[in-house]
């Protein structure tokens, strides 16, 4: 199954090759304006910290390709969560991402008899395609930039998560995002609808009480203080589908700083809601380097 999905992802890369060849024939000049490509959200897509945006990551504009890599660390009341990954984008149209999320249970692992620092890892392969609109340039239109995306996730502790009540260690999220920059006001708004079976992003597996897709909402608002600096907040609802532990919405308030075109730093206060034990508040820090 895993190889099949990886194969499908590679096939997607192959499909993109003609676009890439065309992109290469155009001199790689210009690129995107600072911060308008978003940062890396926790599952690797371009967006805010928690939610994917309709923008395509990477510093490419039409006829070019781009990419970036990121590392994110979230320290909450009981856990340490890290996420790292790479993004490849072409033509300001499609982005492909590969990332890994690690969930270190620290002392909770010991309390549950799993061992101190027991860590659940998840690999996520993502693809996003811009369907219409340009969040930045179409300043005279109401139509936002709209993109659709998919995130295939595979958890390496399927035995544990199924013992906790999940139906599977693998799952696929589908989402549609709409993003609009109101440049004259310096305000960026995003709304995302996600269809998912994931418990805690997939860290606690997929499905549970039921094995259906749940429709969840995510929203971000960011205010540009300068070319380099943006502040914002996000919310992301999640299914509450495991009998053993309540799951609630996650929130964050962030500051993103573009050190230069190729490097951005995001820090946030996150409230990830209840994760097994209790409410998880904490600090989020993320570094992204791009080309």
């Amino acid at each position, binding site marked *: 199954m895993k190889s099949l999905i990886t194969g*499908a992802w590679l096939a*997607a890369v192959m*499909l*993109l090759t003609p676009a890439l060849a065309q992109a290469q024939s*155009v001199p*790689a*000049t*210009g*690129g*995107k*304006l600072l911060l308008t490509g978003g940062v890396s959200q926790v599952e690797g897509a371009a967006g805010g910290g928690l939610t994917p945006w309709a923008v395509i990551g990477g510093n*490419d*504009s*039409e*006829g*070019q390709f781009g990419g970036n890599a990121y590392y994110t660390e979230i320290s909450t009341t009981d856990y340490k969560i890290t996420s790292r990954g790479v993004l490849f984008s072409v033509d*300001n149209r*499609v982005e492909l991402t590969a990332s890994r999320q690690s969930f270190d249970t620290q002392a909770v692992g010991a309390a549950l008899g799993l061992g101190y620092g027991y860590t659940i890892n998840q690999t996520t392969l993502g*693809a996003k*395609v811009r*369907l*219409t*609109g*340009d969040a*930045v*340039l*179409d*300043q*005279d*239109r109401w139509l936002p930039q*709209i993109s*659709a*995306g*998919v995130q295939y996730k595979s958890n390496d502790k399927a035995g544990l998560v199924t013992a906790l009540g999940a139906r599977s260690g693998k799952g*696929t999220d*589908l989402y*549609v995002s*709409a993003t609009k920059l*109101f*440049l*004259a*006001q*310096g305000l960026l708004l995003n*709304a995302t*609808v996600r*269809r998912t079976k994931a418990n805690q992003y997939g860290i606690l597996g997929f499905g549970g009480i039921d094995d259906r897709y749940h*429709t969840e909402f995510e929203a971000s608002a960011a205010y*540009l*203080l*300068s*070319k380099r600096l943006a502040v914002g907040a996000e919310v992301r609802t999640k299914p509450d589908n495991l009998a053993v532990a309540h799951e609630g919405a996650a929130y964050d308030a962030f500051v993103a700083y573009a050190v230069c075109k190729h490097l951005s730093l995001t820090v946030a206060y996150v409230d990830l809601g209840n994760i097994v034990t209790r409410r998880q508040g904490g600090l989020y820090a993320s570094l992204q380097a791009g080309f």
Partner: protein
Amino acid sequence: MRILRIPAGLAVGGLLLVTAPVHAETPPPDAPVIARDDHLFKTFGGHDGLVRITDDLFVFVLADRRINGFFEAKKIPHIKDMLVEQFCQILNGGCTYTGKDMATSHAKLGIHEGDFNALVEDLQKAMDKNHVPFAAQNRLLAALAPQHRAIVYKPNGSEEE
């Protein structure tokens, strides 16, 4: 929540095959006047301020290897004059733009979106240098941005965005 009306069942494979709707589009009208009074115009330093900004803009553009190849030296004074007129009109500074429309003047240049963004960056630098506040800069840029549809070259003639 308009987004709710978008069909959510976009299949994985289908994602990569979606093509944007293609339709012919009439060129957009010239950039709108965005200010009710001349307050914003004054924030840019009035007419003299716009002249300084466009002078600095071309210092940055000519040093910018991404796009300096587009500009012939003998045409630059005219482009600068026309830019001042256009900015002044947009900012309600009491000018009337007398140059060619954006589609006509850029049609044969083969400008890509990246070139457009490069010019915007250089303009941001020129405005920074002249102490135009960030929020005021964005109001001008918001009025200029839609012109990408007339300025940026479309290989197949009339693709939407």
